[in-house]
């Protein structure tokens, strides 16, 4: 992946494998964003719609439900930039696969990618120990689904870090 800032846009170029990983992440994100908090599976709910803080805030059941509804609204607001990514990919016929994201929408993409990292970790029971894996030998000792999820989490981390750096640069 190569990312650069070009005036008011962030321009990415991906290899075919990277495109596939990103498309898979985006498709999963869109599916999960469409699901309302009360219908989300418990692992999604635990990371995206945790009501733990609402108890400390002494919110009533109605207030908590409203709170979760607002959190869902925040997340559905990120769908537009994700749909635009899929549309851009499908309009291309050969690599390098390019994405152009307006700087004004880049933060939505960044946060969505982070949402997916959280979701993958929750779904595959990835915690501190798995995130601390640094060698290939240690990686291969994990169950296959955790290995795949960790690779995806790391790839998305790379994108997140690139995006933060580009957003903080003056262009």
């Amino acid at each position, binding site marked *: 992946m190569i990312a650069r800032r070009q005036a008011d846009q962030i321009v990415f170029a991906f290899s075919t494998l990277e495109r596939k990983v990103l498309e898979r992440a985006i498709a999963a994100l869109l599916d999960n964003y469409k699901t309302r908090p009360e219908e989300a599976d418990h692992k999604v709910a635990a*990371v*995206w719609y*945790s009501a*733990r*803080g609402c108890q*400390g*805030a002494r919110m009533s059941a109605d207030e908590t439900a409203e*709170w979760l509804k*607002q*959190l869902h609204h*925040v*997340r559905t607001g990120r769908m537009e930039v994700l749909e635009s990514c899929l549309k851009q990919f499908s309009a291309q016929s050969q690599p390098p696969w390019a994405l152009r994201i307006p700087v004004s929408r880049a*933060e939505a993409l960044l*946060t969505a990618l*982070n*949402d997916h*990292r*959280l979701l993958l*970790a929750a779904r595959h029971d*990835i*915690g*501190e120990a798995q*995130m601390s894996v640094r060698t290939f030998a240690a990686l291969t000792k994990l169950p296959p689904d955790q290995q795949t999820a960790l690779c995806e*989490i790391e790839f998305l*981390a790379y994108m*997140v*870090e690139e995006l*933060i750096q580009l*957003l*903080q640069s003056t262009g």
Partner: protein
Amino acid sequence: METETLPDISERTKEKVENAFEKNWSVIVWNDPINLMTYVVFVFMKVLAFPKEKATKHMLEVHNNGKSCVATETREKAELYFQQLQGYGLTVTIEQSDI
């Protein structure tokens, strides 16, 4: 016939108004193994308008101590921070620090 007196009501109203303006709600961010350090700093700068140095200090506090109190505010503002930080995927709670 006995009549109810108003002072009780006005006392309660006064208390409610005072509570609403009292900055005694702590916003606490908790550590998690997934959110990147750079991402947490980015979010603190964005939501709490922290300069990079302060954002980094609080991120390290979260990382090393398991949590950091990033703001002590009125209930309304603490709730706003709570919602924004949670929207960014951080683990956040708010609690009244002085009851």
